[in-house]
């Protein structure tokens, strides 16, 4: 009897004071395993994703969209499904797309996107300079964002490859008024500046942000500065689902499910341990008294 009691007590205690490395190990295994051996689980499309889909769907031929890769490479890993699915939709609507980046690590992303969307681009006869352009790292700080909103050509003179942007479709773009839409893919580097210098002045904006920023960005959706917000990789996966173009988002959803369930189990066990241990301690205190 006593032996059993000791054993039980140690379990509660273990659930409270465990080595945090155990959780780390479980995460590693549960996330990597489904990626190596993909299987498909069903998903549901959220209302926010639907609105986002409708905004891009409302674009017309030759509208001018500024796409901003406002992310480090690591952030791109999270939102690449949203980026690919959105830009694919833009290309299908034959919209003119200018891509700008706001972090040196993002300078390689435009090329990665063009490579992956080559099929659609060829199908809709996309020509560099006439229908799309890669401006490169033009937003190193708020100052540069502010300047482009007031006089675009005063600060942006060359594209990412060092060629002059004169003679491209950007000749018609001078201030914030000239963009049909700004589509920001962000980890938050310059999104505040884009809001301040474009969104607040009235340029329509949509955003695909990383999960951590959702709550920060929500007020801008309710105040109308953002027309729509696509949430993290999950939103990207939903957009892939809506546009019937399965990609990195949908394959990641299983690891996603398992990761969430793991944390929930850890929380439940932690609480069982906490209450078990606490009642044990109070029982012990009573006995001693």
């Amino acid at each position, binding site marked *: 009897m006593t032996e059993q009691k000791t054993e039980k007590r140690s379990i509660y205690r273990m659930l409270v004071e465990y080595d945090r490395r155990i959780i780390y190990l479980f995460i590693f295994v549960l996330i990597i395993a489904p990626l190596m051996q993909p299987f498909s689980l069903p998903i549901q499309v959220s209302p926010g994703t639907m609105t986002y889909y409708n905004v891009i769907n409302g674009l017309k031929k030759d509208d001018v969209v500024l796409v901003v890769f406002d992310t480090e490479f690591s952030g791109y*890993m999270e939102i690449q499904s949203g980026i690919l699915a959105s830009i694919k939709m833009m290309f299908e609507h034959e919209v003119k797309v200018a891509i700008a980046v706001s972090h040196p690590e993002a300078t390689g992303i435009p090329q990665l996107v063009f490579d992956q969307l080559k099929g659609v681009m060829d199908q809709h006869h996309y020509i560099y300079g006439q229908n799309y352009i890669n401006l490169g790292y033009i937003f190193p700080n708020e100052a540069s964002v502010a300047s482009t909103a007031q006089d675009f050509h005063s600060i942006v003179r060359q594209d990412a490859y060092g060629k002059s942007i004169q003679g491209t479709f950007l000749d018609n773009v001078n201030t914030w008024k000239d963009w049909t839409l700004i589509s920001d893919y962000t980890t938050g580097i310059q999104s505040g500046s884009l809001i301040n210098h474009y969104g607040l002045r009235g340029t329509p904006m949509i955003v695909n942000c990383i999960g951590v920023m959702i709550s920060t960005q929500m007020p801008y959706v309710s105040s109308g500065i953002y027309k729509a917000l696509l949430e993290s990789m999950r939103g990207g996966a939903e957009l892939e689902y809506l546009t019937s173009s399965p990609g990195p988002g949908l394959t990641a959803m299983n690891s996603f499910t398992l990761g969430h369930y793991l944390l*929930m189990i850890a929380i439940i066990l932690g609480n069982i341990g906490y209450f078990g241990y606490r009642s044990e301690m109070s029982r012990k205190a009573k006995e001693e008294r």
Partner: protein
Amino acid sequence: MSSFFKSKTAQLTIMILSFLAIFVPYFIDVPVMTTFSTKLITITAIVSAFTLLLALYSQFRRGYTFIQKKKRGWIFKAYMMISIVLMLVFALFGQETGPYNWVMYAIITPLSSVNYSILVFYMASTGARAFRARNTRALLLLITGFIVLFYQAPLTGAFFPQLTPVALYFTNTFVAAVAKMFLISVTVGAIVFGMRVLMGKETTILGFTKEEAS
């Protein structure tokens, strides 16, 4: 001349003028001032870029001290300094291809991604520790946290769609409300703080000693 540079009043005046040059044109419509403010912003960005050289100087001096004193692991510092130089040399061969590009994809992007994505581990262990119903606050934290987590797992939506409106209720209301409240609070705090700075009351942040400030 040097006394001018050293005086607090001169610096404060310069700071205030520079502040107003940016602040005022945002409200008052004078095209010349707007143009000037844009230029001033660019000028400060250039100044900021120059300060990199100061940081670099300090970094090399620190590394050199480590090596000179032969502190344990000084070799790592030497390696760090060499890699700075290497990166500069690589940049000379062009940035889109060649060794520079290799470093970007083999070293910088993976390491940046690690430090970012490693947060999932930290979040999980923090969550498991903080989400214990110790008191009312922690209980509330636990309940919403748990519901939203459950909702977010993509599989849940497919089998238990009834949870969606509940989770969305929490994220669309309480989360939205706290974000608003937070912004309002920070904004008033920031402006009042700004006023204290402009009135020369928060002198420490300009790097003055008390004697200079008085």
